């Protein structure tokens, strides 16, 4: 029986980890993701979960422990936030290149300085180019569901890549929400046991991660690249199957909200989409022809999905809740990737950037209204008025 539950995004992911019977996890405290490990520890202590939780010596250790466990054939997870994710920077490529499908929960957080607990997407976006599958959940339900889908996609023998289940710190990690915990039977049908083709096994000895000569590296990198592209098809397939089995139907890549008749759209990811939808309703009543697009994945980046719908709109306002100092266009990663995705699309819309919600600040209705007004000015001008805008810093309305 599906169980209705009221708790946080972190607890929801812990529910997913319990359902998939993880074997090993590695902990280290940093806000805001920490509570998931406290929850795992509690469930191990009371017998609900049967897994080993290793108290790592830091995030570098956490990733290394999960990597080792995965090479031995275990379903392994870990998690972190902010500078914890960058402290582990060395391990992203060895884990993905070693094709170890561990899962990392990210409750995102600003990078220092200043010491700020608030949500920002910069922490794991900084680590985006190593071959990890990841995207943001907008609420607790989606966090649980993404965790299940990520295991299925990442552990697929055709994929074998690590995944990040990202969520906005506080907004998703800590706000109490209603969600459903699926049946164990359904989860068992959805996700087969983890049985890697190669593991550390004295009866079938293998060498993992050997030194190679220069000409041997590029074929392996090509393979990682091909698999990352192949993951897109797997995401579509798994998202559809998930919908059939669990009754929750997600857009595989880009959720559209009130895009019918919309000439301009916000494009964003994560929890701020919840506020955005509410703002869009008000804006429509006020006569703004506006809708919303929400990305479910940043790696692989859904360029084909964006290309397929881009021409419906005249202006896309990309909201980055993170920084990429010195990036083309003066905004963040999503602005660069969105512009790159549709650069060759016929009748492509004008893409402008907004940087908002930094430091864990709420993006308020008022700020969405101002962004909509700036997009309206672009629409009227038929060209960019300003390439990108840090909301509240250099607004042009």
């Amino acid at each position, binding site marked *: 029986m599906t169980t209705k539950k009221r708790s946080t995004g972190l607890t929801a992911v812990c529910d997913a980890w319990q359902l998939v*019977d993880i*074997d*090993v996890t*590695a902990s280290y405290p940093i806000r805001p993701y920490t509570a998931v490990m406290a929850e795992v520890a509690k469930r191990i202590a009371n017998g609900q979960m*049967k*897994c*080993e939780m*290793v*108290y*790592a*010596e*830091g995030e*570098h*250790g956490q990733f*290394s*422990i*999960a*990597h*080792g*466990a*995965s*090479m*031995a*054939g*275990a379903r*392994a997870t870990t998690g972190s936030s902010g500078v914890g994710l960058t402290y582990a920077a*060395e*391990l992203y490529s*060895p884990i993905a290149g070693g094709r170890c499908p561990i899962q990392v929960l990210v409750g995102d957080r600003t990078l220092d300085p200043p010491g700020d607990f608030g949500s920002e997407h910069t922490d794991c976006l900084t680590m985006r180019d190593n071959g990890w599958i990841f995207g943001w959940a907008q609420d607790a339900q989606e966090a649980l569901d993404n965790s299940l889908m990520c295991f299925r996609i990442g552990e697929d023998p055709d994929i074998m890549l690590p995944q990040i289940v990202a969520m906005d710190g506080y907004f998703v990690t800590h706000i109490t929400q209603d969600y459903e915990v699926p049946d164990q039977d359904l989860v068992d049908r959805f996700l087969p*046991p983890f049985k890697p083709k190669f593991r*550390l*096994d*004295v*009866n079938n*000895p*293998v*060498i*993992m*991660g*050997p*030194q*190679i*000569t220069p000409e*041997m590296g590029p074929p392996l990198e090509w393979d990682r690249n091909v698999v990352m592209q192949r993951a897109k098809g797997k995401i579509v397939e798994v998202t559809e199957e998930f919908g059939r089995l669990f009754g929750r139907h997600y857009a595989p890549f880009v959720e559209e909200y009130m895009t019918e008749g919309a000439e301009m759209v916000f494009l964003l990811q994560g929890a701020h989409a919840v506020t955005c939808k509410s703002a869009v309703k008000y804006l429509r009543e006020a006569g703004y022809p506006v809708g919303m697009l929400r990305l479910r994945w940043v790696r692989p980046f859904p360029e084909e999905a964006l290309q397929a719908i881009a021409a419906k709109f005249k202006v896309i306002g990309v909201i980055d809740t993170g920084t990429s100092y010195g990036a083309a266009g003066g905004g963040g990663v999503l602005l660069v990737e969105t512009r790159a995705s549709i650069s060759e699309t016929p009748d492509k819309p004008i893409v402008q950037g907004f940087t908002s919600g930094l430091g864990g600040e709420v993006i308020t209705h008022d700020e969405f209204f101002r962004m909509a007004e700036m997009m309206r000015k672009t629409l009227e001008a038929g060209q960019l008025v300003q390439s990108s805008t840090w909301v509240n810093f250099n607004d042009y309305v």
Partner: protein
Amino acid sequence: MTVQYEEIKSVKKAPDEEFYLPGHRTCAGCGPAIGYRLIAKAAGRNTIFIGPTGCMYVANTSYACGPWKVPWTHAQITNGGAVASGIEVAFKQLIKKGKIKDEFPNIIVMAGDGGSIDIGVQAASALFYRGHDVLFIMYDNESYANTGIQVSPMTPYGGNTTFTPPGPMIPEGKKLFPKDPMLIFAGGGHPAVKYAATASIGYPVDLMNKVRKGLAFEGPAFLHVHCPCPKGWTYPSDRTIDLAKLAVQTGMWFLYELEDGVRKWSRKVDKLRPVEDYLLGQGRFTHLEPEHVAKLQAWVNERAQVLGLNATLPPVH
């Protein structure tokens, strides 16, 4: 605590089967390679090696010609202890849950001095603290050798490396004295470590038995193995074993075990030979002046006394 293990009585009575095979690219006379062969032989078939980056990674694992007959995995130079921890808990869980039918394997980290006591010290300390059933072996060739011989914390005082070249302003080359890994890892600060030992490739039977003993102890064990390096120390490649023995005879290396914190000497030494006997013929020490040699001798004598070696010590000139 006593443990049962199958003791190897002599080199001749050691098992014939090799698990570290010919075909790798280490230097002629490579001390660490000799060590690897002996360690793998002693550990046997049911063994998994974790090899953090170092010369035993770079020179051994050339794609498709790695010398191991048992599973081997690379770890970063930083994280041998952490990767081994993950492997250990994974085997314990998977066996406990019945997900695999394996017998719990010998899990051995083969880390260089940098990967153990310098950049790898955090992960190693955490492994020892948490008490994983892993044998952590530090093969010590007293430098970062695979990058072209740079100073490590284990380079002796006076050692000439590419980062510590002697010159008029710094006549002795390396000015610092080395760390003491036995004290750091097994000196009481990691209560889970019940067995630790120093060993040398110059004393192969002793080394192989310490490997077996370390594996027999439940929980983490630490071995610190002295492995002369012809390339890094600049000596003819046929002198590796000779130098390994000279190190022990001069007190530049002490052979002992720590079982539950109690020291047991592995060889009876009545009289230490002067350090000059060890330094002579090693290119890395040819620049040393008598005052520097005297400083090294004083250091050896002090260590012998601190460790409680009951032997006649050479005078310090």
